[in-house]
């Protein structure tokens, strides 16, 4: 399994290197073919990885046999099910005792496998959607795309803090170039803002990480950068609350910007509007998930008290504001791409809300939402890109009634919009529902407010669909360079190939969400065990003895109330 992982890191990286090395001699066609074959190969590798994970790890888990590879203890909140470690550096004290070690540590669990598969899938779609759109310096473009993919996969399989941080920052560089070179008219400003804003945030994260590592190393943990070891150690020796909160806040800084959580979101619409379609797809589809993934991997397992005291009330509140605020901003956008960008702010709000519900339902919902948002928003950006490629505009004022001209694109748009607004039966619903349900257990007020965002979600997206695709046909006049009218054609085979897998997955995950949930279930269970996951506390109150004790499993409650009857 680890071999597959290495291959899926190496293949995109090697393709990128090849593209850069031979950038002089490769023309557009050959560089995009190379990029396509590299990304498709990576996709297959990650699918193999997924399949193998299911057979090697999940099957034995179901039958009760512990997986062979598991270094961390049973109670650990982070438990890689497959791993590779290689020691880089050992620091010994004068007596020869090892005080600290640095290692290369790759590990996989269900969450990372799922996110890696999402990344590789979206990369293939990104390559396909750039096929015609990118003609200028194509090989550099695809190289940047593949480096980005490598970085993203790297983040999701790093089990070591240093590696995690390096990959985390590595993703900035290719995306910076993607926006700054191949972006829209205002690309310089967007790229610089994107880069500086996220960098500023993640430098605070870095300082927090350094302080944390120094603290635990001094306290005696010999592998202070290994995530599982760190989580274990912190679970066994909980930090004082004030310290937890400081670390939590420092680490959150970078992630809050990355997600982005209100009010740190203003870089996002700008970056999306200026980025080329492929950049937007990967930015919304995967890059934003680095933020939520950071919370999931670092904050949640390591600082449970801080999450309860600060995370739930504060980040929960910010997420709720983000959901409503993002929806409102989306509602009055005239630029579809900006509208989708603001919808991302709202959707990531649901995701954060789920994670910080701090219970099984919520965290599962949050993780599902990560994948689902990647699929549906990725697909939405693909469609927006297709429209832009045809009309060179994204403004709702310029286009209308396109369903007549582009029936297949219109169908896809309606379908994906439905998935994005959380129609049950498509992927968005289950994640959203679980996030909200989880939050409802932790804080009903937040959940109710956030649910109102669901209504707004339907409103802004369907308004955009109505304006762009329904009504009387209205399209900007287009002439090609020879003065002949531009022929507008519907979805072609290449675009279909880019879009169809995403749409199919939207449907599949809506009808069979269990196939994704069972993948991440053991990891979420391990994490939420930290928060003493209690089943919903039924309000059935015992008339004799007062309140039913909290954390009574449901069947007991039933029998309890039966006892009430007996007592009567």
């Amino acid at each position, binding site marked *: 399994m680890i071999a597959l992982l290495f291959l899926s890191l190496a293949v995109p990286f090697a393709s990128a290197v090849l593209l850069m090395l031979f950038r002089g001699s490769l023309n557009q066609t050959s560089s995009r073919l190379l990029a396509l074959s590299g990304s498709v190969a990576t996709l297959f590798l990650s699918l193999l990885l997924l399949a193998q994970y299911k057979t090697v790890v999940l099957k034995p888990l179901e039958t009760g046999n512990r997986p062979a590879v598991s270094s961390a203890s049973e109670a650990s909140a982070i438990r890689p099910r497959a791993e590779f470690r290689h020691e880089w550096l050992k620091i010994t004290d004068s007596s020869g005792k090892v005080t600290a070690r640095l290692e290369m540590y790759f590990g996989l669990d269900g969450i990372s496998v799922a996110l890696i598969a999402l990344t590789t899938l979206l990369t293939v779609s990104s390559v396909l959607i750039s096929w015609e759109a990118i003609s200028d310096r194509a090989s550099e473009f695809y190289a940047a795309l593949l480096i980005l993919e490598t970085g993203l996969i790297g983040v999701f399989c790093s089990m070591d803090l240093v590696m995690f941080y390096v990959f985390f920052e590595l993703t900035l560089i290719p995306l910076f170039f993607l926006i700054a070179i191949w972006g829209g008219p205002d690309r310089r400003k967007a790229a610089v803002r994107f880069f*500086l804003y996220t960098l500023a945030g993640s430098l605070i994260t870095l300082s927090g990480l350094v302080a944390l590592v120094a603290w635990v190393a001094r306290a005696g943990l010999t592998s202070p950068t290994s995530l599982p070891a760190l989580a274990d150690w912190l679970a066994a020796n909980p930090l004082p609350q004030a310290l937890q909160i400081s670390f939590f806040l420092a680490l959150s800084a970078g992630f809050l910007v990355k997600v982005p959580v209100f*009010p740190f*979101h*203003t*870089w996002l619409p700008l970056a999306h509007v200026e980025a080329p379609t492929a950049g937007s797809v990967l930015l919304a589809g995967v890059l934003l998930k680095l933020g939520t993934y950071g919370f999931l991997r670092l904050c949640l397992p390591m600082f449970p008290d801080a999450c309860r005291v600060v995370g739930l009330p504060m980040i929960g509140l910010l997420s709720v504001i983000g959901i409503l*605020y993002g929806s*409102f*901003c989306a*509602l*009055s956008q005239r630029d579809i791409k900006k509208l989708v960008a603001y919808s991302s702010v709202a959707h990531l709000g649901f995701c954060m809300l789920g994670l910080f519900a701090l219970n099984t*339902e919520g965290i*599962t919902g949050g993780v599902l939402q990560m994948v689902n948002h990647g699929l549906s928003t990725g697909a939405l950006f693909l469609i927006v890109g297709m429209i832009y490629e045809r009309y060179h505009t994204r403004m709702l004022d310029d286009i209308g*009634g396109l*369903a*007549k001209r582009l029936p297949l694109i219109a169908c896809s748009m309606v379908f994906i919009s439905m998935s994005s607004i959380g*129609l*049950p*039966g498509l992927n968005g*619903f*289950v994640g959203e*529902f679980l996030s*909200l*349900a989880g939050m*409802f*257990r932790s804080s*009903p007020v937040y959940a109710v407010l956030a*649910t*109102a965002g*669901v*209504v707004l979600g*339907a*409103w802004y997206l*369907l308004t955009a*669909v*109505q304006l762009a*695709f*329904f*009504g*009387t*046909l209205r399209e900007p006049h287009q002439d090609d360079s020879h003065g002949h009218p531009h022929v507008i054609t519907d979805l072609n085979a290449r675009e279909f190939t880019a879009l169809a897998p995403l749409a199919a997955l939207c449907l599949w995950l809506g009808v069979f*969400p*269990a196939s994704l*949930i069972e993948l991440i*279930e053991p990891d979420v269970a391990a994490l*939420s065990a930290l928060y003493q*996951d209690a*089943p*919903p*506390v*039924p*309000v*059935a*109150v*015992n008339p004799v003895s007062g309140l039913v004790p909290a954390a009574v*499993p449901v069947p007991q*409650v*039933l029998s309890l*109330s039966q006892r*009430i*009857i007996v007592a009567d």
Partner: protein
Amino acid sequence: MSETTQQLILWLIPVAPLLSALITALAGPGALRYKSHLPCWTALAVSFVCSLILLFQILPSVSQPRTVASETTTSESAESVAIAPGVTAAVRPQVIAVGYEWFQVGTLNVRMDLRADSMTAIMLCMVTGVSLLVSMFGSGYMHHDPGYPRFFAAVSLFVFSMCMLVLAGSFLMLFVFWEAVGLCSYLLIGFWFQKPAAAAAAKKAFVVNRIGDFGLIIGIFLIWQTFGSLSFEEVFGGTALLNAVAETDPGRIQLICLCLFLGAMGKSAQFPLQVWLPDAMEGPTPVSALIHAATMVTAGVYLVARCTPLFVLAPGVQLFICATGAITAAIAALTALTQTDLKRVLAYSTVSQLGFMFMALGCGAAGPELVTAAVTAGMFHLFTHAYFKALLFLAAGSVMHAMGDVIDMRRFSGLKKALPITHWTFLAGAAALAGVPLLSGFWSKDDILAVIGEATHSAQYGTFFRVIQIVASITALLTAFYTFRAYFMTFWGEEKFPEEAGHHPHDASPVMAWPLGILAVCAVGIGLLTGPTHLFAGTLQRIQGLTAVETHGLHWGVMAVSSGIAIVGIGAAWFLYVLSPGIPASLAAGMKPLYLISNGKFFLDEIFQWIVVFPLRKLAALAVLFDRFVIDGIVDAVGMVPRALSVLPRQLHGGLVESYAGVMWVSVVAAVVVVLSLF
């Protein structure tokens, strides 16, 4: 019948339309084209037959105690404080077809299983039967529409969703298909998407429904938290738990019921969320018949009836339901009085009749012994209404078809001779809706008036229900009046066609005439067949939360009054629109403000626009400005800090060799001075 066969039959009911939807969607544009109705017809026929088998074969056969799946429940409910004291709990026959586990997270386990009891079976028969007839009519009506395959794919998907909705065994599964029905209505209302009005109506229907869904989903969260489960069986079956919660925390049950009812208000177009329904007439007419008669709008009524065990414990909410129903019924009826668009008259009458159903459901507040009668009356009206309203819509569609898509009643009249089939079938539907004695609408409306009448004897809420009674009676009168106003305006008077119709309008072709005929027979006879014979009530009352009551005869008094109301209403319409057609115009002129209010639909759309849409739009615009100038402004300001800090140091790196030299000279001198002074 073996269990496997039973399960197969149960599964066939929703799966057949689903398959048809898939086949039509895939093969429709290519291979099928104008044969796209065939899969739909076949599938709906299969579903209908299976529903009938379910109703007549399976459910009676499982009612023998040994196969009852919910035996424990039954004994429990007998043990609990029985809803109607002294009546033994009846056997609750139900069939469950195992599906798959949708997901299982934490304590939340949601399965996709089908569950059918007698209420489900009745709903299924009605839904699939009416849909089959509508789809037959539709193949004639939609003939040569370029979207022909799309129409039948969406109709099949719609029937699938609706069947799954009533077959759902848990709140979450119900919600899933509740939303799916919303999606299909979006697709069907917006069928002619090139028409801006249709596109706007589709969106409006979906979004307004979502407002209701907001309540429903909160209700589901609350149920999950309160009962630890979402399955009907565990929530309603655990009567002990239900009563325990009701005793200790009645507010929570009220809240749950209120939330659920908010969902029902959206779907079943109750005030103030009824704004979407009249606009939805922008869809093709068969769609109106499908959505606004037999299926989608009944979902809310079904939900409330299904949750009777919960609503019984929340009399406050029941009063609220009753009041909402009354307000809706009255407003919609008053609006219908002055509409000139035939389909809109019918749309408002649908809203009004749904109000009637909710009025009936709310009567349970008067006392637990009334609950069964109340739910039965509401569901019975839902049942009969489905037939005659589908008939009326289809007949209106037939008129529209003949008149070249003109539906404004001022532009045609006297169609009696030109469209005989349409005329007679419309008359049958109108008479049934007006409550002409012995027709189906008569029996069900009579049941509702009777149950409201009984509720007025309640000690606690007597006055409230007396008001309701008055509103209901007046609304019934108005119903008879506006229905026959539409009838007389369309079919009587001098013969007049709009120019779009050509000179010789054609009556319904056979494929349209047959469904009209069958529905007309149902509209006339189904009430008599199932109402006074206690067939409907007897079947329905075998579900959870209801108790079988013995037939308490016919309410002769109420029947006399409601017959009188119907006849007076029809007579008034005849007088005003046939005998002296000048009067309505002068009445309208004489009571201009009232006329304007009614004709302007109580300005509810405008009010909605000003109170909800406009402020939210403004808020959205404000949010964008806030985002650009405040939040981004702060970000920019923070970004300025390093630059501001660099002002001074920047002077030092100006690139001028002279200034470097100057600095160097000064520094060297200073250094020398310092060094020298130290020693």
